[in-house]
């Protein structure tokens, strides 16, 4: 657990390395975002505001995303340095799911494959549908957005999957399930929304059954070097702008996730940086937004969605600078 040092202690410790000194407030925010300490009332209120913001953002913008991109609300997985056309993206999004399952070594053997799946931060159910179909088993998805949950339900029904997938409005930090319920715990690009990473990770581990795989695919910032206590001011400024538009709490690094998983008696903790495999994604999203359909849809959708669209070039900038990382972290609960 990080210690809150006084500014004087920090300046004595770090003055020679030239690393940036965090003031008390910044340290508290960073600690709170990892969730390692009891959060005070102000933080609790901010968390409630954040959750409402997330729900409203997705209530407003899911429709336009679905219209242009379909039911998978995540990055595609591409061969590095490949050129892709718009029609390749759906296949790339499916490939992202498959690569993640492969990375986590999820068994395909009929006896060992997952028999119950939870999709944490399920969007409009793209992953839930895919996983339920792939393993021939039931999957439940949770989202903060009632609009998404209802849309997910309708889409699943339209695909004849109503009996295999279900959706609830629920909080990933307080999942409405008993312990040890699911053989596969799936979080595809929802981790970046979670305000208390430790609680998020703990819940994933809690609802995982013995032998289950936990898969987290998420946006992180670069790992800090051993002499750094935080990102530099320019980096923080860039992330703050993105956070504001996408209703994201303070970012953490891939290393932070690994450190949070380590004390939970989980096995085979693996992490990787997949940034090079998602490089074509944001340029493609920007291009789609600039089409006639994109622009008119944005105008009709609302301010939150427009703000989100305007911030897309910042995501590209973040990746280019090596500040934003597309990370995968997986592990297994012991039998």
């Amino acid at each position, binding site marked *: 657990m990080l210690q809150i040092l006084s500014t004087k202690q920090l300046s004595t410790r770090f003055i020679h390395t030239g690393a940036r000194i965090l003031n008390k407030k910044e340290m508290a925010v960073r600690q709170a975002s990892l969730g390692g300490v009891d959060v005070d009332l102000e933080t609790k209120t901010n968390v409630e505001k954040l959750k409402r913001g997330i729900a409203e953002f997705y209530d407003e913008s899911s429709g336009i995303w679905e219209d242009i991109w379909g039911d998978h609300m995540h990055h595609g997985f591409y061969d590095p340095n490949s050129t892709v056309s718009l029609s390749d993206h759906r296949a790339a999004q499916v490939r992202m799911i498959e690569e993640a399952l492969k990375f986590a070594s999820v068994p395909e053997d009929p006896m060992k494959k997952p028999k119950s799946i939870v999709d944490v931060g399920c969007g409009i159910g793209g992953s839930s549908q895919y996983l339920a179909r792939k393993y021939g088993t039931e999957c439940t998805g949770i989202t903060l957005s009632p609009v998404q949950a209802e849309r997910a339900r309708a889409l699943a029904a339209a695909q004849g999957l109503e009996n295999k997938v279900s959706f609830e409005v629920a909080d990933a930090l*307080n999942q409405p399930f008993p312990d040890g319920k699911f053989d596969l715990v799936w979080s595809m690009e929802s981790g970046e929304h979670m305000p208390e990473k430790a609680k998020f990770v703990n819940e994933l581990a809690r609802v995982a059954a013995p032998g289950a795989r936990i898969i987290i695919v998420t946006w992180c910032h670069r790992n800090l070097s051993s002499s750094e206590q935080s990102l530099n001011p320019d980096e923080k400024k860039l992330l703050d702008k993105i956070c504001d538009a996408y209703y994201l709490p303070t970012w953490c690094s891939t290393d932070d996730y690994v450190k949070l998983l380590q004390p939970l008696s989980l096995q085979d903790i693996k992490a990787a940086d997949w940034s090079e495999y998602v490089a074509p994604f944001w340029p493609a999203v920007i291009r789609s937004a600039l089409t006639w359909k994109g622009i008119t849809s944005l105008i009709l959708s609302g301010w939150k969605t427009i703000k989100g669209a305007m911030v897309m070039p910042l995501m590209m900038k973040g990746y280019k600078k090596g500040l934003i990382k597309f990370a995968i972290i997986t592990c297994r609960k012991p039998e």
Partner: protein
Amino acid sequence: MRLLTHNMLSSNIKGVTNGFPLRIEVEKVVEKSVDFNPDFLKNMFAKIEYKALVEASRIMGYAELPDHAEPSMLESDDFLRKFHHALMELHLEEGTLVCPETGRRFPVNKGVPNMLLHEDEV
């Protein structure tokens, strides 16, 4: 919300020791026809809390499911079909799920349960 889903939901309000099963208050039940899949049902039987399913199906207006069940009964087509109907074909479209310990009410609208907790419940 079908009863397969109800069977996996619990109330995790702070301080609650046993938040399962949630009590169902019905406003609107819809029966939906679902393809009968014996293998799927046999897999699910091991994973569900049977007693909770029986109670829930009675509240939803279906009284055919036997009070107790043994895995051997899965060989009986008659039982399997009743099990299938209760688990998969009864949908709570509108209603409420109630925490058995605190009485806290979780609404179900258009078949989607809302399990979000308030600030003071976590």
